[in-house]
């Protein structure tokens, strides 16, 4: 069996229909338990006080914002190389999810930054590259909407996705590249000095799992929708020609 079998829209819908309920239930279980655990049962940080509880939303959302774009990059490359429509539609489906994750990361970051840094916003390398990533999400979605021909839209958005990937990578590694700014380095790290304490990281892992499962479930659902919308457009076009 080859992975390219799932490039068949019927096969994709059949398979994802079977998987989606498991992903959705897993997402709800992980998100609810992780957030309750983090919010109610973790202590305040000695420096950041209760604001440390924002980590359970900010970090998973930021992680998904970057990785959603990387998923779109892979799907776009598959479209460019192999011309599978499902992959282009999967990239289109993931964009609004990534954009919402970016808004959550930016909003919670600003709310967290105000009491900790004394400012809602600063032109720090990581924050700035994240804002640019958000603008790329908006541009990507607008480009899909602006072009009538699906294949042309897929071609142009794929190129935009390749360009935007620079900012997706930058928003992850900006702290290391420039070594300046207010934003701290990675919260989860193999380096024990940098890694947050287990009492915070354990519920954080559960929340991250919840965000990943939610992302997968939504990508499945939204890709199915895009496949059906594309078929509807094709049928309408055929109807008009007849």
């Amino acid at each position, binding site marked *: 069996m080859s992975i390219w079998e799932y490039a068949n829209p019927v096969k994709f819908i059949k398979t994802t229909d079977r998987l989606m309920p498991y992903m959705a239930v897993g997402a709800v279980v992980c998100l609810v338990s992780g*957030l309750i655990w983090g*919010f*109610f049962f973790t202590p*305040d940080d000695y420096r950041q*006080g*209760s*604001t440390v*509880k*924002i980590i359970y*939303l*900010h970090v998973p*959302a930021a992680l998904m914002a970057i990785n959603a774009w990387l998923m779109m990059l892979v799907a776009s490359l598959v479209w460019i190389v192999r011309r599978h429509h499902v992959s282009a539609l999967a990239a289109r489906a993931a964009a*609004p*999810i990534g954009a*919402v994750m970016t*808004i*959550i990361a930016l*909003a*919670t970051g600003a*709310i*967290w930054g*105000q*009491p900790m840094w004394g400012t809602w916003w600063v032109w720090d390398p990581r924050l700035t590259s994240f804002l640019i990533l958000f603008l790329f999400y908006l541009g990507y979605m607008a480009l899909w909407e602006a072009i009538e021909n699906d294949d042309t839209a897929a071609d142009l958005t794929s190129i935009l996705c390749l360009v935007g990937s620079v900012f997706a990578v930058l928003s992850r590694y900006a702290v290391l590249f420039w070594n300046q700014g207010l934003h701290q380095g990675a919260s989860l790290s193999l380096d024990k000095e940098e890694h947050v304490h287990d009492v915070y990281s354990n519920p954080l892992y559960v929340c991250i799992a919840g965000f990943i499962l*939610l992302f997968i479930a*939504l990508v499945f*659902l*939204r890709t*199915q*929708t895009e496949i*059906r*919308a594309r*078929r*509807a457009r094709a*049928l*309408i076009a055929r*109807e008009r020609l007849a």
Partner: protein
Amino acid sequence: MMPDLGKYADAVLSSYAVSIVLIVALVALSIRRARKVKAYLAEIEERQKNV
């Protein structure tokens, strides 16, 4: 039951409120559009079957 969030209560609660509202809205809009498009496609297919 509610933990004492101290002077940062507004920041913590507003973070959770914003995030939960956005996630719920994203899920609700995705499900709504999925249902709408599915019904629309079924309607077109039915119409073309009868032609």
